[in-house]
């Protein structure tokens, strides 16, 4: 579910950053969650992609009850560590698990908007094809050095020709031939740590791998 926000006084962001959203109920109760910004820096309105967690406190409201004109508070953009570097020299690898693909999508969008042709591979791991987001757009962005790949871990549609199973040493062997100049890994903690460890085992320098772990409430 994508939300488009018109933010007063927004001064721009870098692809990869997030915002902290705070909701206040009429009785004063507050809840706060972090969401990665999905839009590229010059996109105009701010775009957040929120995954609905059925027994969640905030996401059912943001993906179900919210209406045009509703308001909430935002802190951000936040984070300068996990951001796209337009001056990167060499290949880039983006590895996303589930909703971890959101900040990576912002990066892919910025890259396209800049007309950048730096070889960039996105490896997107999801349970099934049904839950893969940005499908059409990723197809459209393919080319000019951008190559998305998908690995489905639980179910495959008939005739699936993409990868299957978790992102492990064997999959990385197929997908990542050399060592990229920059790698970004994002998703739930177990995913991020398994992927980062596998990359380091393959000899990738840890300082060229940037990670962003999402907690159980998404991000």
């Amino acid at each position, binding site marked *: 579910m994508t939300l488009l926000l018109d933010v007063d006084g927004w001064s721009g962001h870098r692809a990869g950053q997030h915002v902290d959203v705070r909701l*206040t109920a009429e009785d004063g109760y507050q809840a706060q969650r972090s969401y990665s910004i999905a839009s590229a820096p010059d996109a105009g309105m701010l775009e957040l992609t929120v995954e609905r967690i059925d027994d969640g406190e905030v996401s059912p409201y943001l993906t179900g009850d919210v209406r045009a004109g509703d308001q909430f508070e935002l802190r951000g953009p936040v984070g300068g560590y996990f951001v796209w570097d337009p001056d990167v020299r060499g290949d880039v690898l983006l590895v996303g698990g589930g909703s971890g693909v959101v900040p990576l999508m912002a990066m892919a969008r910025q890259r396209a908007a800049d007309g950048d042709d730096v070889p960039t591979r996105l490896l997107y791991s999801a349970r099934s094809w049904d839950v893969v987001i940005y499908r059409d757009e990723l197809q459209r962005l393919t080319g000019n050095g951008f190559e998305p790949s998908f690995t489905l871990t639980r179910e495959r549609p008939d005739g699936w020709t993409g990868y299957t199973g978790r992102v492990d040493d064997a999959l990385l062997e197929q997908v990542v031939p050399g060592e990229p100049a920059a790698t970004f890994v994002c998703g739930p903690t177990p995913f991020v740590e398994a992927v980062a460890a596998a990359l380091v085992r393959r000899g990738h320098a840890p300082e060229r791998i940037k990670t962003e772990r999402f907690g159980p409430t998404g991000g």
Partner: protein
Amino acid sequence: MPIVSRGFKGSRRDEGPPDRVPPGQYLTNDFPVLSAGPTPQTRLADWDFTITGEIDELKRWSWDEFRALPSETFTVDIHCVTKWSKLDTDWEGVALDALFDGVDTEAEYMTAYCDGGYTTNLPLADVLDGKAWIAFGYDDEPLDPEHGGPARLLVPHLYFWKSAKWVRGLRLTSTDEPGFWESNGYHLYGDPWREQRYWGD
């Protein structure tokens, strides 16, 4: 003034019966896991529990010796400073009274220390006379590592940060020495009925 978001209600917050649920708390059906650090992986063969500090003779129990002490099952309400309360939780453990049986001390306070480095401080009087246990079982099962297993301190009448997970011993002291959270904002004593969450409360 924060902006109120139309229609946002948050999860259903049940304040529960006021004689059981302290002010500012909400009932939960889950058992939230909050940790200040990684879950330790101490093997039982390496585990021991010691009472040190202002005591004539250091006392130490291996896991087997600890489990040979008289233990009991008990049901208590617990209250976390992050506002959730859980009523009628079932535990199994050794009362601190059993560990202090025969211990001679003038100390009035203690600091619990744990695998991973966590500490919390309490007046000794708050863990004796049936007020506290070293718990090794929850809900008829061995205590899960994420909830403090193999054993945690359990002091239900104070905020749950005092019920130190992965406890390995107590150091008896003559002064009240702030532990991990008490050193950085949380109340030295932590009585949920007087809402003693932070310094100065």
